[in-house]
């Protein structure tokens, strides 16, 4: 594996020798790398290369799959997230996730954003909750569009608005890390551009890890890019280096469209 990235950036997450198995089948092989805080790290690679599986390790989403087994260590702020003392639900409040298809709850726009804050008891009063909802919607770039119809169902919004609602919902509980699994693949170019602009703003305060099938998107929004193939991390480096002068031939072949 080639790592051409700067090593002096503060790491939020450190992965060491991570293996993932689905029953007997190994999906991730010996992946080690650091994910810096306050920046966007893009995971790219062909379908089935393990990038989504790897992403799901970071908030222990693989726990929900009976046959899945994760080995190796994943440290967040120096603490092992797979340690038996760590509550997965609490972990997921620190590590938010946005999925490929916008999946708002069948509730009002307001309740979608307020949901997590209520569960985690983040607001003692109604004004405090209002505050969280407004701030989250503002940060997700959606406030101006929905402030007059907060009681309308979340599902009444357009696809791009729904995805921004899901991002607002994710940031409402004050996470430190946001995982995004192809957040724009169901959106048109305008909605995609808005999400990308949003991601660029969010990286000022969050550690963002994003899986994307669009290499142009990885090039546009990420600072670091990791290329996965067949369950292995092939190369990681500054995004600019990966897309202008990658060191590994496999990376080169993939990003120039010569793969397989």
């Amino acid at each position, binding site marked *: 594996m080639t790592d051409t990235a700067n090593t002096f950036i503060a790491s939020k997450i450190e992965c060491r020798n991570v293996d993932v198995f689905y029953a007997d089948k190994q999906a991730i092989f010996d992946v080690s790398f650091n994910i810096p805080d306050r920046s966007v790290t893009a995971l790219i690679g062909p379908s089935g290369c393990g990038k989504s599986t790897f992403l799901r390790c970071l908030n222990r989403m693989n726990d929900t799959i009976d046959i899945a087994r994760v080995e190796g260590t994943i440290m967040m702020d120096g603490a092992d997230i797979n340690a038996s003392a760590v509550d997965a639900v609490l972990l997921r409040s620190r590590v938010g996730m946005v999925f490929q298809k916008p999946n708002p709850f069948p509730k009002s726009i307001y309740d979608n954003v307020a949901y997590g804050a209520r569960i985690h008891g983040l607001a003692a009063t109604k004004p405090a909750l209002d505050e969280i909802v407004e701030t989250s919607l503002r940060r997700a770039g959606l406030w101006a569009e929905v402030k007059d119809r907060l009681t309308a169902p979340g599902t009444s919004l357009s696809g791009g608005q729904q995805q921004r609602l899901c991002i607002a919902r994710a940031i409402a509980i004050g996470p430190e890390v946001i995982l995004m699994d192809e957040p724009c693949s169901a959106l048109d170019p305008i909605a995609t551009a808005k999400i990308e602009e949003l991601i660029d703003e969010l990286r000022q305060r969050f550690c963002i890890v994003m899986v994307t099938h669009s290499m*142009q998107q990885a090039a546009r929004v990420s600072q670091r890019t990791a290329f996965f193939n067949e369950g292995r991390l092939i190369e990681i480096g500054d995004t600019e280096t990966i897309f*202008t*002068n990658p060191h590994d031939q496999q*990376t*080169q072949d993939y*990003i*120039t469209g*010569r*793969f*397989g």
Partner: protein
Amino acid sequence: MMQQHIVSAFTSELEQLSANLLRMGGLAEAMIKDAGRAVVSRDAELAQSVIDRDHEMDRLEQACEREAVRILALRQPMASDLRNVIGSIKLADALERIGDLARNIAVRSIAVGDSDNRAALRGVERMGQAVSRQLQVALDAYARRDAVAALAVVHQDDDIDSHYNALLRAMLVYMVEDPEQLDTRSNFLFIVKNLERIGDHCTNIAKVVHFIATGQPVANDYSKISAAPNKDAPNNEDA
């Protein structure tokens, strides 16, 4: 050679771009040689044919530029493909400039008038051959994406410069010999200067080829240049 693209039209567009550049390169080589010969042999017809060929050069440059812009817009090339496309815009520009300079030499060759200074003429011819050889090696390096061969061209530029300095001195003596002919003989200065400029463009072409092949610019200090492929660690550069 490189693996094919999944989208085969992309591969053929890049090949087309390369082929057009090599066509420009072949044209430039011939123009330099013929312009040099026109000076030495006082052949106005040959000079005129060099002047005429410059139009074809301009046309090819525009075609290369159009194709490069088209690939950038439609294919969003990455990594080595991106360097190839950006590099080809620079190469087309340099070759077009070489065409202009060769054309200028041809124009001057007509204005030189009847010259009886065989030594000066032979000097021009030799320098013309040396420059044309530089271009040939640079273009071969481009065709093979050969960073080592490209670096050899960069090193050779010192030879062109010493040709230039020697010839310049000879020309000054030649001009002083007969002040009456200063007008026509001063054309030699421009011819020699143009050859020297062509040599500089050849060096630039070689540097672009090195960048296309390795992704690394050529360091200014020649002793520190490495032709190592980009797989090597950056700190091997001094090897």
